[in-house]
């Protein structure tokens, strides 16, 4: 169907339009509530769902060549990978491996005493 002109039924388009409006309302409502760690993932999940509906139905990817679908899916997968692994840093900074500050005493036996690297 790469070069086909698939006619999407008006009923389907209307349903997707309704779903997009509904998800927009959900976005506004959830933005008013502090869900802590879930704030960003939820906002992204809603935005992602809306994007999927637009791309698959309005942009007709659902009816297009599978290679194009694979290309889009790969792009999305890598965006998700980027976000998830970056959030694994930004959301967990300081939560592991941090100890109380302490003064490190120079050992009197050390030959390096008194000669610090610049």
């Amino acid at each position, binding site marked *: 169907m790469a070069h086909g002109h698939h006619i999407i039924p008006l009923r389907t388009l209307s349903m997707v339009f309704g779903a997009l409006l509904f998800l927009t309302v959900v976005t506004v409502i959830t933005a008013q509530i502090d869900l802590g760690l879930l704030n960003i993932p939820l906002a992204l999940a809603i935005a992602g769902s809306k994007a999927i509906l637009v791309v698959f139905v309005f942009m007709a990817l659902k009816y297009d060549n599978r290679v194009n679908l694979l290309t889009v899916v*790969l792009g999305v997968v890598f965006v998700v990978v980027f976000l998830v*692994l*970056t959030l694994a*840093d930004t959301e967990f900074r300081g*939560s592991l*491996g941090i100890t109380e500050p302490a003064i490190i005493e120079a050992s009197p036996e050390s030959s390096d005493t008194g000669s610090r690297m610049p």
Partner: protein
Amino acid sequence: MSDESHNYLNARKGLWSWLSTTDHKRIGIMYAIACGAFFLLGGILATFVRTELGEPGETILGQDQYNQVFTLHGVVMVFLVIIPAIPGILGNFVLPLQIGAKDVAFPRLNLASWYLFMAGAIMAVCGWLFVGRVDTGWTFYTPYSSGASNAVLWLTSAVFIAGFASIFTGLNFIVTVHKMRAPGMTWNRLPLFTWAIYATGIVQVLATPVIGITMVLLFLEKLLQIGIFDPALGGDPVLFQHFFWFYSHPAVYIMILPAMGIISDLMGTFSRQHVSGYTFIALSSVAIAFLGFLVWGHHMFVAGQSALSSIIFSMLTFLIGIPTGIKVFNWVATMYKGSVWLRTPMIYALMFLFLFTIGGLTGIMVGVLAVDVHLHDTYFVVAHFHYVMMGGALIGLIGGLHYWWPKMTGRMYNETAGVIAAILVFIGFNLTFFTQFFLGTKGMPRRYHDYSEFLEIYPEFAVLNLASTIGSYILGVGLVMILVYALYSLFRGPKATANPWGACTLEWTHTGPVPDEHNFHDTPLVTRGPYDYHLADDVFGKKTES
């Protein structure tokens, strides 16, 4: 077979015929000239760096100049040489020939890629000459780049533009491999160089936009004072490193994957054997391409990244050793019981095997969290990535250029000169960079123009740095020697036959000594694999170059 007197070099004449060409072979040659010039520039800058470090104290460069010179060396070598060189030169020249196509899928886009690359390159060099000298290092880390002069904007814009050339080239190759293969050229008959360029194309298309986005964000931050990366504006400098390395680590695979493809072809041709583990080598290229996206955080273990993140990235980093190991073991297995023909390209293939393995294994070492804490930002890391980027990518490129030189120019080079230059490159390279492993483990930090203050504690820094500098001169002599005999070959070299190596792939078996403008008079019908050397002597004749 092509008419030998009529070929792509003499089909049209004049400078404009080159600048307006859509012939993939000519575009490959134009990349070769451009990348060669930038390699020369990058090499001269590297010589300045090593000369400064040859003796303790300030010698030929002040500290600011030193920072500026190593920054430009990094930018030129990474963005204008190693990333574009193999896809641009050999990908363009060889890939359509190897799959039996008359050109790439989008010839005009291919030419546009070259112009974009040149625009980015000229902008980078002119910016450095006329706007200001960036001293941030090739990584443009914030807050250095946030606080630096507007010259950073020039350089980042140049990288942004050159990035589009990379995206278009990758896209072109992906579509070409999918759509332009000759009848019978099934996926399991693709030469491994083509497989590698295909996998590289995926990385180019998926990763390069991120460096573009990063540069735009940096641009916006500096111009509009929006806090994205600069902590003074409320930004997060480590976030810049996430963005930067999400592209730049896969970019390491943009550099090394095509070189791995070259080595696979060289191993098959010069061992006169079917490449061992063909399917595994092909799929390991794709596996490396994908795994390469998951490991960027190993550049940031000591940058303030969360411990959780560092643990995840460290574990993922070890995974990439698996497909890489598959390749290395299969290359060795290809030579086993083969009829190894030790010509210059094969010498470079063996060199790659040795140097890249050192580069890869030291990469695993710095992938270990506890080890990296000690070695980060020391000369150990400098040595490691030069073993990968130069010992791997550039040595692969040089091997590939020697291999396809007769097809590109119709001339042979002097084999003895080739071997001598290869030996000089090998000795020079190892003397330059192996010493840096010792410097790094002793704690010598990178990006310092002077190490006099360390000598009281580590007097061996002086002799190690001197050895490294002498090595760089030997390496330089070897590389200049290659340039000299290549130029001699171009004008005076003996004419090459159509298949001087007795190779099995289509660019050797189905074109004349120099391919004609449209590659093939008739579309080839492929009935065998690319390394069926058990058929080669019967079907294509014995090797003719002695």
